[in-house]
């Protein structure tokens, strides 16, 4: 299931960062490829397509900075829901 999520995250990022492939551990914010609206789009994607609610306490740049980080966030959230 997590591999599926990784693929979805890669596909989503590929829509916004189009002239090259992004490595899973690459920081998408410091690479300077995204504009100021991107955080909103990313949050909507994580909530809508990955079915993972994003709350105030998740708002740390480290949670969204790379494919690996987003997958880890969804993993943690899913584990928390399962209890």
């Amino acid at each position, binding site marked *: 299931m997590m591999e599926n999520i990784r693929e979805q995250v890669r596909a989503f990022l590929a829509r916004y960062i*189009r002239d090259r492939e992004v490595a899973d551990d690459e920081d998408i914010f410091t690479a300077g490829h995204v*504009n*100021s609206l991107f955080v909103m789009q990313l949050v*909507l994607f994580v*909530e809508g397509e990955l079915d993972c609610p994003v709350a*105030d306490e998740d708002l740390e740049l480290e949670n969204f900075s790379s494919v690996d980080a987003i997958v880890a966030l969804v993993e943690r959230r899913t584990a928390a829901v399962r209890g």
Partner: protein
Amino acid sequence: MRVQLTAEQQRAGERFAAFADDHLVPYADGWDRAQELPRAVVHLLAEAGHLGAVVPADHGGAGLDAISFGLLHEEAGRACSSVRSLLTVHSMVSYALVRWGRPELRARWLPELARGTYLGAFAVTEPGAGSDLAALSAQARPVAGGYALDGHKHWITFGQYADLFLVFARLEGRPAAFLVERQRAGLTVVPQAGALGTRASMLAEVRLTDCRIPAENLVGRPGFGLSAVAASALELGRYSVAWGCVGLAEACVRASLAYADTREQFGRPLRRHQLVQRMLADMVTGTSAARLLCQQAGWLRESGDPASVHATWLAKYFASTAAVRAADDAVQIHGSRGIGDAYPVQRYLRDAKVMEIIEGSTQLQQITIAESAYQVRPRPAGGVEPRRPDAEGLIR
């Protein structure tokens, strides 16, 4: 693309239209001239539940779906852009809390905002930070038990009436959002008069001087004040203004159809002159197209689709420029009477111009839309786009 409204949305739209016709349309010119919206109108809006539009029902609000929210702002915009802008900024503050407020903050403030016992205002713009919000310079300093704010905000809609300001400032360099109650020592409101449009929107400067607030008034995480808290609120604001512009353009259509039907020159009504028909046709088409873009943005917004961000920019850009064209033509059709103040069309033109400046100016919309058009176009075969030439013109 979905365009049909549900029966419930249709009924809500009729209710909003009746409210606007009864309580706003007959008085809007007077408020514009007086540069003042009577407090009683705020109470009427509160009683009708319109101030709780984005607040979920479990916090005492109306919890409107995105389309119904749009219809409310269309009808308010048709009647009075100052009232529409009140609904806009109040909903922006409420929505920022719905989206990013901690549970205690939501429980404390959302019922008050929904009831209208507290009126919200959104304070990001500074003399040095307009379109370029990253130039934000207001400062927040950690002090015992909370923060001390220093800064200068201007053009704050309903700043003169607001009880609760959502203020953006830098906390140790990082953009952050704070709730500041009006009665806090160190917050001063200075009315701004003489605006071209939305003249009854009770604009104000807000000055903060060592203004102390408790730690729990922080909204969202430091570092995300602009990219998440302000961005979510501005996104809603843009959506609201786009619908408000549909209403404004609709008001131009109605005024122009009525006037061109009765005014006669050269032996027949204006509506029979082809060059006037050209203006009527463009106005009607622009209004319909703007409404469709708003509806599309609304359905995407309702389903939480990331594409709603782009769709909302398209809607706001198109609707605001269409409203300016419609109002310009409406004044033209009214001739000298369009210039005078016996007809509302001169107000529509002044109000429409404001819409090209707020919630992202026309130029900022153009830049953003052109940039994101590259994200929504189909990818070339093979997935990765061809590399662009570098500064030396070489593809490496």
